[in-house]
């Protein structure tokens, strides 16, 4: 073992230069060409950064499309899921309460119209998206709070829906709400 130790240490040092200095340097250089220059894609409004495109933020006011429940309360430096098991009675009571609150805040909506993502917490606690149904079900409430025409708000959701070739369709809540603010200001 002793005769092997010195070569092991020297090889380790050489590989460290390769994997921990040169390789990250190369990726950092490539990142300069990418959107956001590797520092995350930021979204600004009136010259002020209001968020990262990919990082969900809390929207719970009636005049905004609300984002999903979050176990991390949208603290973007402490991502976390709820890790609640599917049969946990306390957890199920929380889900029920979220559903009841949603129905109360959105009169006229039936439970069967509420997509489950609106009453369950995401894996990261920072999910930036809703499904199109999750946004559309909030349209009447948002339109009423903003005193906007429902049809115009619905069109807005449809414009903001991102449809991929594969995988579920989704709406970026931050972008949708910024578009909503712009529409209301017009």
């Amino acid at each position: 073992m002793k005769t092997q130790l010195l070569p092991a240490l020297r090889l380790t040092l050489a590989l460290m230069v390769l994997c921990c200095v040169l390789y990250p340097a190369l990726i950092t250089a490539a990142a300069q060409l990418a959107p956001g220059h590797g520092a995350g894609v930021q979204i600004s409004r009136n010259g002020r950064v209001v968020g990262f495109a990919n990082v969900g933020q809390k929207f719970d006011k009636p005049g905004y499309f609300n984002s999903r429940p979050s176990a991390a309360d949208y603290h973007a430096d402490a991502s976390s899921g709820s890790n609640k098991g599917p049969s946990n009675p306390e957890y199920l009571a929380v889900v029920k309460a979220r559903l009841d609150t949603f129905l109360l805040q959105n009169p006229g909506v039936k439970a069967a119209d509420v997509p489950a993502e609106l009453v369950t917490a995401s894996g990261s606690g920072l999910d930036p998206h809703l499904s199109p149904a999750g946004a559309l079900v909030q349209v009447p409430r948002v339109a009423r709070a903003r005193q906007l025409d429902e049809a115009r708000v619905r069109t807005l959701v449809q414009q903001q829906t991102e449809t991929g070739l594969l995988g579920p369709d989704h709406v970026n809540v931050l972008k949708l709400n910024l578009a909503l603010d712009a529409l209301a200001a017009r």
Partner: protein
Amino acid sequence: MNKELLGILLIFGSTVLLAIPLGRYLATIYRGDKSWTDFLAPFERLLFRIGGIDANRGMTWPQHLVALLTINLAWFIWAMLVFCFQGSLPLNPDHNPSMTPDQAFNTAISFLVNCNLQHYSGESGATYFSQLFAITFLQFVTAATGMAACVVVFNALKEGTAEKLGNFYDYFVKSITRVLLPIATVVAVVLVFQGTPMNWAGKAPLVTVQGDSVNVSRGPAAAMIAIKELGTNGGGFFGANSAHPLENPTYLTNAVENFVLVLIPLAMVFAFGYYLKRPRLSYMVFGVMTVGFLLLLAPTVYYEMHGNPAIAHMGADQRLGAMEGKEVRFGAAASAYWGITNTVISCGSVNSMHDSHMPVSGMAELLGMMTNAFYGGVGVGFLNFFVFVIIAVFISGLMVGRTPELLGKKIEAREMKIAILIALLHPLLILTGTAMSAHLYAGNPTEYAGWLANPGYHGFSEMLYEFTSSAANNGSGFEGLGDNTPWWNISTGVVMILARYLPIIGPVAIAGLLARKKFIPESAGTLRVDTATFGVMVFFVIWIIAALAFFPALALGPLAEHFTLY
């Protein structure tokens, strides 16, 4: 067909299609034949010169193991030092603290053994220095260690009698320079262009649209995430791992990350066939592994896409599936596919929280780790499978009344003893650990109340999962478990070491012993191991030894929970 199902079908299909040529390439470079990456040879020679290593010297199997264990010991000490002092080291813009000794012990072992169990959160528990110089480094070299050990076994199974089984450093360095680094570079570049950060500044403070103040964690993430998946390591840059929208921003990155983590374990299977020039043998292995994989995948996709019956009962619309712990951009099918690929393969990264999966999915994930040979981790998955092959050969030999032989070598008592010990080690570690924890908890539920985030059967599953994940060197978790305590840090640390090195030492020793034996040419009396019949035999050996041993524990946890929910 449903878009979500089509998505996972395409990911799996493209992985298999690319694994075949990659397997041929792996066989070429390990054999030392001419390949198009030979332009890297001078660079490798430079590495060997710095190391003072003669990469052409053949090594016997004990020499291989000494080389492997020595360099691993050096890495362990280095990682332990980094984690204990990271708070005072450079590249720490967020001023994160050093780890406590028990947490540093657990973390150092965890990354050293390719497990990547994490009892810390990346945003607050690690620094950019430790993420790069300890974690990323280990993610490269431990993957290469597994691949090198696997090639030693390939060598030993060649025709003829051999004492020397190639050079460990040669296989190890080539795995990095010719496989891991190039592919990781491509993946990391895809990630940064999709929005994953690769920067050196600390958290970004900002005020949101609604007026909340938040700090957005960033860092040199893309470089690490690429090798985390490619090397089947699985330890995330951020706490939420690949569920985090910066770690895995889009459906495309999700597909790419999921693709590369399956790639090398699959390619190793095909490399086996090319290396020995017995392609049918690798079809048999691939067939058995794929059947096992699909049997675990199908129920998981079904249950995740159908949602939680308790929530359905409240009347909410679960067309998207069980969304607790899942991200909208991936959906239920891709989350289920990710969950199973990451548990049959010892990667253990997550893009949805396994703790919140339906009980049957949780059980399938547990079974993936309990068998740990349906593809398995880079290199080591094949070694686990090899142990089951030895056992299957022996049993088949007895059944038909012939001397058990594998590829012209007699399997005798010594090899069988090692194989059985390795096969039984896995249930022993998992069940003993879980039993001890359950005993502690049951003896004093108030003192250990912080352990379990969920009551009842699910709480038991959380403990079972933690030990299964440690013993399988997987690293995913039912993260509701409050696991940053001395008990969990130390017990899982010990399990991780035993479960990494013994299953490498065992198969390498068996292979080394076999290589020395007289070669018996194939005749009409030889048991053919490249047939479907033998494949079925191996499948049942895996099923009986690895899966049924755990049935009582599964009945207490996920099965009991399933029948209360449905």
